[in-house]
């Protein structure tokens, strides 16, 4: 893999914002979004009129689904923004696609400051309909979707069955054990207890984990993230435009977005997913190495995905994520590689992708009150599972 031009190095994160994280929230999806975006713009030391681009993953897809109720079009109109470029859409390198696309728009010379956001209201949706989210469109009528028509006839009605297939294969090939996997959930819970915005803040023991309900072997309820209502936003700026902003810019040192396999949940490598392609690309675009990483925010929509990202990004040897996380010390806040320092999605809430970027920036700026890591110059963020995957290497200047 050779790259002449590494566009992301021209882009920095200059501000972050996040709404309340509710389960549920009484605010509208747009109000949550506005709260996050205005906070991010102010945090960057910018005015609303400075924003000339908007990016989002996945956008509202014209269906008002609580998975993504607000898209770039609606936000642009609500905030009265004049933009040179805006875009969203599900198809792309996973939950970080908004960041990656927004950075491209800046590097291409279309924009100076791009507002990237992600809103989700799955908690309030489930107050009215317990099946919302997991089962939308998966139980009625004939299935014509490119991907799900191969799963729903066999009563694969939730993504957890697919993640469970990855987990079972990991257990089989590498001898990974339930007590090792549990450390992802336990670590997230310990971190969430230090995060006032986290959904679950009561202690969780190994017994609690092992006794939690089996959903799809080997994954239990505590291996699944927790629905919430929230919006997260970040401001991306051209690096020379970033110099006017209030805090040291966080450079996007490298991105990973590759997919060298079929876009498929079952044809893709079960132990590598898209993640290994993504990791190889990211490290090919930088002189930094995995040993430079001070903290990692790794997607935990399901705990097994965090394990696979650890391996995919070279943060531990391939197949050895189980041994790496065993006991939990290494990945704790005061360990060699703190992960998911705000409680992740497992205990913090399923802010879905951008929440990890928000937390990485808090850490890099030394603003993660109550849960600040000792070393905080280089952070990595990775999000997605199966064929969805993207990653960022972030460096504070």
């Amino acid at each position, binding site marked *: 893999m050779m790259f002449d031009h590494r566009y992301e190095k021209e882009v920095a994160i200059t501000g972050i914002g996040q709404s309340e994280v509710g389960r549920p929230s009484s605010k509208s999806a747009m109000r949550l979004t506005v709260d996050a975006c205005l906070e991010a713009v102010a945090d960057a030391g910018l005015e609303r009129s400075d924003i000339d681009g908007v990016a989002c993953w996945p956008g509202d897809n014209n269906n008002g689904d609580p998975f993504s109720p607000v898209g770039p079009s609606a936000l642009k109109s609500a905030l009265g923004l004049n933009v040179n470029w805006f875009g969203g859409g599900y198809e792309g390198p996973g939950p970080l696609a908004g960041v990656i696309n927004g950075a491209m728009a800046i590097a291409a010379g279309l924009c100076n400051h791009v507002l990237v956001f992600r809103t989700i209201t799955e908690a309030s949706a489930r107050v009215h309909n317990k*099946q919302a989210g*997991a*089962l939308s469109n*998966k*139980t*009625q*009528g*004939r*299935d*014509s979707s490119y991907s799900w*028509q*191969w*799963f*729903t*006839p*066999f*009563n*694969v*009605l*939730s993504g*957890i*069955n697919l993640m*469970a*297939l*990855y*987990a*079972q*294969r990991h257990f*089989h090939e590498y001898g990974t054990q339930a007590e090792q996997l549990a450390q992802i959930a336990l670590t997230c819970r310990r971190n969430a207890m230090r995060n006032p915005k986290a959904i679950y803040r009561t202690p969780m023991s190994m017994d609690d984990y092992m006794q939690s*309900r*089996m*959903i*799809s*072997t*080997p*994954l239990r309820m505590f291996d699944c993230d927790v629905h919430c209502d929230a919006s997260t936003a970040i401001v991306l700026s051209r690096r020379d435009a970033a110099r006017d902003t209030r805090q040291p810019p966080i450079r996007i040192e490298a991105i990973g977005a590759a997919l060298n396999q*079929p876009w*498929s949940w*079952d*044809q893709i490598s*079960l132990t590598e997913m898209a993640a290994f392609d993504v990791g190889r690309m990211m490290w090919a675009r930088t002189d930094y190495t995995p040993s430079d990483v001070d903290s990692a925010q790794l997607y935990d929509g399901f705990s097994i995905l965090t394990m696979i990202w650890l391996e995919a990004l070279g943060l531990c040897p391939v197949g050895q994520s189980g041994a790496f996380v065993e006991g939990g010390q290494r990945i704790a806040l005061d360990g060699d590689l703190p992960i998911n320092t705000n409680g992740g999605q497992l205990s913090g809430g399923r802010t879905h992708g951008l929440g990890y970027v928000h937390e990485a920036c808090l850490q890099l700026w030394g603003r993660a009150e109550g849960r600040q890591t000792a070393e905080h110059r280089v952070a990595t963020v990775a999000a997605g599972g199966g064929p969805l995957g993207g990653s960022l290497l972030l460096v504070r200047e």
Partner: protein
Amino acid sequence: MPRKLPALNADNRAFWQGGEHGELLIHRCHGCERFFHPPGPICPHCASLEVEPHAVSGKGKVLSYTLNYQPWIAELEVPYVVAIVELAEQPGLRFISNIVGMDPLAVRIDMPVRVSFLHVEDVWLPLFERDQ
């Protein structure tokens, strides 16, 4: 158990209806002679358009599996086994299905299996049973 059925089209019809004649039909390329799945109008290996469904043995092995305990909808009988089955004809040739006709707790990775069709409306779902 309730089954949501696929919408049939010119590309996937053979796979979903081959069971009417007891055949598991998988797309195969005349250019490179390799099988591929899911079926489509072009070979993803060599880009040949000379592709057509071809009957395979229906034998394979379990690549991975999970016991689903969550009753996503009321009529589901849990636990049921979701598995990825790799067909005997070619490494990597695989799809998701259910393992039926045995104790779910006895399913293992690498267990040999053979196809067993379940007829629902105009579709013959290729499920799998343990192959002794």
